[in-house]
């Protein structure tokens, strides 16, 4: 057997476990969901489940609500995380040390516990409301509302996003910034022409992770969100578990997958573009 053929077979054998795993836990469930979502419940196949998803008033508002919460959460998480990462990269002192030591803490608190904590903190009769009461102030409605979900998303996602961005910014050599300053660039120009372009790949990775995590989240929207409209994850659980409409739930799952795929596509396209530029 030729050496090239042996190498090719060896490569295939090595890659097969991960391929099988991907097939079993990702590809097959997606295909199954899609096939199930096409079933009209009368023995036939059509797009009626998708028609319902986009024409039903409740479903439409769930989709819009999900997109709104996801976009706001992503924007706030990345804004806070990028600011923290920038501050840690370009500043020093006790505050930086303190941030560096504490920003990962939310990662070590289970989601359901953190959500319970937020309910106790931000609820109508929570600690914050009781602290504000003697001052004659009333806490605005934060939980059982989209604001509660956004706050929870910020709590859950900031550590990981900050860690990724911080690592990317640390990877930008100080000498690059120095040479830009030496050429005459001010702070804003350095950020726009050097720091952001040199860290945007990781920014895109962080955005992808936060987007996927938020759009498919369940615990926080279930415990902190309103009864209506609902995030797609909560709505999907109701359609599947309470209303027992398996096909409709499958259509919602497949639609959520498509939403995530859009971001995945942009991510892969930008990576491919960069690789081509480097060749």
């Amino acid at each position, binding site marked *: 057997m030729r050496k090239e053929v042996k190498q090719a077979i060896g490569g295939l054998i090595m890659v097969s476990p991960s391929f099988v795993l991907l097939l079993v836990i990702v590809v097959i469930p997606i295909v199954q969901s899609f096939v199930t979502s096409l079933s009209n419940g009368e023995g036939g196949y059509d797009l009626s489940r998708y028609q319902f998803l986009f024409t039903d008033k409740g479903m439409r508002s769930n989709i819009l609500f999900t997109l709104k919460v996801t976009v706001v959460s992503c924007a706030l998480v990345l804004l806070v995380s990028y600011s923290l990462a920038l501050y840690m990269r370009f500043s020093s002192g006790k505050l930086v040390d303190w941030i560096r030591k504490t920003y990962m803490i939310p990662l070590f608190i289970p989601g359901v516990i953190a959500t319970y904590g937020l309910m106790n903190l931000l609820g109508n009769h929570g600690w914050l409301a009781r602290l504000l009461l003697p001052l004659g102030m009333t806490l605005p409605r934060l939980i059982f509302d989209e604001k509660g979900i956004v706050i929870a998303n910020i709590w859950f996602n900031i550590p990981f996003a900050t860690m990724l961005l911080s690592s990317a910014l640390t990877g930008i*050599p100080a*000498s690059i910034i120095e040479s*830009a*300053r*030496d*050429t005459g*660039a001010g702070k804003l120009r350095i950020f726009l022409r*050097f720091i952001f372009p*040199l860290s945007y790949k990781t920014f895109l990775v962080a955005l992808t992770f936060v987007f996927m995590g938020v759009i498919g989240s369940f615990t926080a929207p279930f415990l902190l969100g309103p009864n209506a409209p609902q995030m797609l994850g909560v709505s999907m659980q109701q359609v599947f578990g309470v209303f027992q409409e398996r096909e409709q739930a499958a259509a919602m799952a497949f639609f959520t997958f498509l939403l995530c795929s859009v971001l995945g596509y942009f991510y892969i396209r930008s990576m491919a573009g960069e690789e081509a*530029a480097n060749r």
Partner: protein
Amino acid sequence: MSVQLAVRGLTKRYKTGEGVTGINLEVNKGELVTLLGPSGCGKTTVLRGIGGFLEPDAGEILIEGKSVTKLPPEKRPTSMVFQSYNLWPHMSVYDNLAFGLKIRGMPKADIKTAVSDALRLVRLPGAEKKYPTQLSGGQQQRVALARSLLLKPAVLLLDEPFSALDAKLRHEMREELRDIQTQTGLTMVLVTHDQDEALSLSNRIIEMNHGHIEQIAQPQRIYNEPETLYVAQFIGKMNFLEGVVDGERIRVGELSWPNAKRLSGKVKVAVRPEDVGLNASSNHQDGQGQGLPGKIKQIMILGHYAEVSVDMDRHGTLKAFQSKEAIERLRTGESVRVTLASMIAYPND
């Protein structure tokens, strides 16, 4: 000749204890001055102080007569070529070169011409569309040099620009830098620990040690007349012998020289290997002729000359550079008489 750069009493101490103290120097317009010294001597601190990359504890920096001490790097009329090139990897060569000109508001057509001219000057014509990762180390350093040259700085700062290059390329780049300096007439301050680089490129050398200046002089003078024992040890190869002041003369064995510096007691006598003469002992009938007795330990042929190691007994080992013709008369293990054509004496600290 007008003074382009003046550093007055520059002091910067780091927490580690390293840094520089009371540095005073002047660089004339169109001059190439080298800060030379070993790692940690403070030469880069001085350069970064001039470039505005560190805030001095004390002192003043003047460029073209104006104080720039409080100005950040982006406001100073300087430009630095860094040791690690520091090209921006996400920008093409053209964008790397055009960036500074765009900031200065130069019209697009003029930028294009200027970039093209700068690339021709550094012998990289047509490289505009390439990215830094597609260039070799030498090419990257040329682009970095072009980027700085385009800004027409009042003082060009070069921080060990060739240290990452191989020996051959380093030599080529030295010649190119010398040509560019001659063509452009730019004032340059070069930092290096490579004495060959300093000797071959500089109008003047500033020899630094432990955060202070040991000597400022032209290359030939710093080589021939090192003012301190440290400079004598650092620049070029040097032999050191124990000498003693005997009245008005300094004596090493039976050799003696006038005590011009009026030293006293024991002294260190420094002799360049090219000033060491070797005569076979058999030339003297009783073996007691003029010179110090020695025995040839090793002969290393180095192309057009040879380095001869001579065992001098209580004076240790002496190095002597000998011509090809002279070597033919010498053999390893042979006894010789050593003569010293010239020497410099230093107090024996």
